[in-house]
C-alpha cells in the first residue's frame, strides 16, 4: 500500500460563530481524482483552502505526505504549497504580466529556475493546454476558457503533486466549459492527484474515483460516482441530487 498524499483528521474551521467545517476526516491516495460536491455555502471552498493552508484550520490535522501542515512554520508551509497547485474560479492571473511571464514567475522566484529553462517549460505547458500562440498576450485579451487554461498551466509549472480546483468552470460561458474540462481530464489520465470542487456532474461521473458529498460542515457521503448517483444514502444527498438533476 502506498502512503496517502493528503490526510485530514478531525478538521474544523469556524469564522467567529459560523462553524463552517465541523469534523472532517478523509484521505486522498496518490493518483486519485476526488470530486467534492454539495450545496452552496456548505464549506467546499473553505475545505479546499484548508488543504493548502490559505485558511488556517481552527482545529484538527491536515497532513501532506505524512507531514502535519498545521504545526509547520511559515517557510515550510510555503515550500509545501509548491507541491499543491490551486486553480480558482476567478482565474486570478496576474494582469500586469504576459501569459508567459505568469507561468514563469513562480518557478523563477521560488525555485530559482533560470530564465531559459523556465521559458522552455512554460512553452511546453502552453502547448499542453493548447495555447502556444498566446504566450505574449496579456490576460485581459484572453477569453475565460483561455484564461483558466493558462491558470492551470501556471499551477503545473511548479510541478505539483496534487492539484486543487475550486469550481474552475463556474465563471465560464457554457461554450468554454468543455475546453477546460478536457484539459483536466487529460491531467487525470496522466495520473495527477486531484481534488476538484465542481457542479459539473458529467465530469464527476466520468472522471472521479470518489465523490465526497459535503453539507452542513461534514462530508456526508464518500462513495464511488456510480453508488452516489444511483443510490445516495443520506436524505441530504437525495435532496441535493433531486434539485440539480432535473
Amino acid at each position, binding site marked *: 500500500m502506498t502512503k496517502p498524499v493528503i490526510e485530514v483528521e478531525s478538521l474544523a474551521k469556524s469564522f467567529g460563530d459560523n462553524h463552517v467545517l465541523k469534523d472532517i476526516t478523509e484521505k486522498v491516495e496518490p493518483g486519485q481524482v476526488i470530486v467534492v460536491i454539495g450545496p452552496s455555502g456548505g464549506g467546499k471552498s473553505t475545505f479546499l483552502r484548508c488543504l493548502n493552508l*490559505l485558511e488556517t484550520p481552527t482545529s484538527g490535522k491536515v497532513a501532506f505526505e505524512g507531514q502535519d501542515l498545521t504545526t509547520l512554520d511559515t517557510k515550510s508551509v510555503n515550500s509545501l*504549497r*509548491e507541491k499543491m*497547485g490551486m486553480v*480558482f474560479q476567478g482565474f*486570478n492571473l*496576474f*494582469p500586469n504580466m504576459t501569459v508567459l511571464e505568469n507561468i514563469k514567475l513562480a518557478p523563477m522566484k521560488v525555485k530559482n529556475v533560470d530564465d531559459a529553462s523556465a521559458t522552455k517549460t512554460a512553452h511546453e505547458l502552453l502547448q499542453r493546454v493548447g495555447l502556444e500562440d498566446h504566450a505574449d498576450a496579456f490576460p485581459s485579451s484572453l477569453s475565460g476558457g483561455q484564461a483558466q487554461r493558462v491558470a492551470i498551466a*501556471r499551477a503545473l509549472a511548479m510541478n505539483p503533486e496534487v492539484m486543487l480546483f475550486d469550481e474552475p468552470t463556474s465563471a465560464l460561458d457554457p461554450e468554454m466549459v468543455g475546453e477546460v474540462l478536457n484539459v483536466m481530464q487529460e491531467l487525470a489520465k496522466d495520473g495527477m492527484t486531484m481534488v476538484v470542487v465542481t457542479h459539473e456532474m458529467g465530469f464527476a461521473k466520468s472522471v472521479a474515483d470518489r465523490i465526497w458529498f459535503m453539507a452542513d460542515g461534514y462530508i456526508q457521503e464518500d462513495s464511488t460516482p456510480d453508488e452516489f448517483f444511483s443510490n445516495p444514502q443520506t436524505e441530504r444527498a437525495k435532496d441535493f441530487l433531486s434539485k440539480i438533476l432535473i
Partner: protein
Amino acid sequence: MKKRFGLLLAIIVALFMTVVPLNAQHAQAADNSLAEIQKKGTLVMGTSPDYPPYEFQATVNGKSTVVGMDIQIGKKVAKDLGVKLKVKSMSFDSLLVALQTGKIDMIISGMNPTPARRKNVAFTHVYYQGGYSIVVNKTDKAKYKDKDSFKGGTLAAQTGTTQYNAIKKQTSGTKTKGMTSQSDLILALQSHKVDGVAMEKPSAQAYVSNNKSLASIPSHFNMSSSATSSAIAFRKGSTSLVNEVNKTVDQIKKQNLVKKQYLPAAGKYLKTNSVDTSMPHYWKAFATGVEYTLIITVCSVFFGFIIGILLALARMAKGNPLKTALRWLATAYVEFIRGTPMMVQVMFVYFGLGLFVNLPALTSGIIAISLNSGAYVAEYIRGGINSVNIGQTEAARSLGMSNGATMRYVILPQALKNIWPSLGNEFITLIKDSSIVSIIGVTELIYQSNIVRSDTYRGVAPIVVIMVLYFIMTFTASRILNYFERRMQHD
C-alpha cells in the same frame, strides 16, 4: 531695526531650552567660550542677507557673495580673535535658534539688543547707532515732511520691527500696514498701495540712491537709543568671548570705522549691483535656484517613496506582538507627520537633529521633506495595495511564493500602477513645496528670487521669472509622468 521673531520659533527655542538644558548649564558652569573658539580656529557668523547695506548678496568676481557693513565687522572680530570667519546665511527668524543650537557662533545681522532678546542671548556693546527715515515716491515728496504728515494715509514697515511699532504708537489718524519683506514694501509704495515706508536710514539711503523714483524724508520717531542700535549676539554665558569681542567693538566705535570705511565699502557693492538689474543678468542666480529645487525634489521623491513603501508595509503588518507594535508606530508616525506643518518639520530636523549631528541645510531639507512625503506616499501605497484583488495574493501564495515575494512581484507592481497618478501629483506638489526649505537658507528658487529682489530693488520681475520657471518644471514633470502612465496601460 529688525526684531521679527516668529511665535513658532519662540516656541521651538523654548522647547529646545527645556529639552536640552545641558548646553546652557554647561556654559554657565565653566565659561570657556573664548578658548573654544580659538581652539576651533573658525568663527561662524549667522546673518540674514536681505538688508542692505547691513548685509546683502552681491556679485563679486562673478560669484554671489554676502557683503555689507556687518560682514566687515564680522571679519574684524574674527581677525582680532585670530580665527577665520565663516558666514552662514539664513532667514532672520532662524538666527536665534541657530545660535542657541550651536549652528552658528554669533549673530551680526543688524540685530538690536532688546530686553526680551537679552534674556536668551548675550550682547556685545553697540557697534552702530542708526535712525529711521521714511521713503516716499519722489512725486509726492513735497507733500510730506515727517511721520506726522500722513494723516488719512498709510505708512508701512516690516511687520514686527521697531519702526512698525513706532508707526502704530507714535502717529494718529494714519493707517499702519505691515509686510514681511523690504522689497515688497517698496513695491507697495511704487504701486501707491501705501504712502510711505519707514525703514532704517542706511537702508533708505540705499533704496533712494538706487531708484530714481524714490525719495527719503526724516521720520522724527521718538526712539530710545537701544531701539536704534545694533549689537553682536553670542550664546548666553559666553562672558569671556563677549568681553574679548567688546574690545574690538569699542575700537570700531572709537575710530568711527562704520561710517568711515564699512558703509562706503558696502555702498560700492550697491552701485555695482545697480548697473544691470535686468532679469537675464541674474540668470545664474535663477539657475542655481532651479538646480537646488530639482535636487531637493528628486532626492525627496526618491527617499520619500522608499520610506512610503516601508511605512505602508509596516502599517499592514499583523500577527505577532512585534508586528502589532510596528503597525502602531507607523500609524502614529503617519498621523503625526500629517498633523504638523512641513515648515515646523524642516526647522525641527535642521535645528533639532542639529544638536546631535551637524547636518548641512540642504541635507536637513531633503531629510525633512523625504520624511514628510513618505507619510503621504505611505497612505497612497496602502490604498493601492488594498485596491489589488485578494485573489492575486491567494494565487501567488498557492504557488509557494512567500509573503515578501508576493508583495514585491505581484501586489506592489499592480498597486503602483493604480496609484501612479497620485504619486505623480505628489511629485509635482513637492516641486512647489520644496520652497519651504528657503527658511533654513537652502538656495532654492524662492530663496534665490528673494536675493535677486533685494539685490535689484525690483519687486515683481523676479516673481514673474520664478513663476514661469516653476510652471516649466511642473508642466514638464506632468508630461513625463503622463508618458509613463500611458506606457503602463497595456492591460
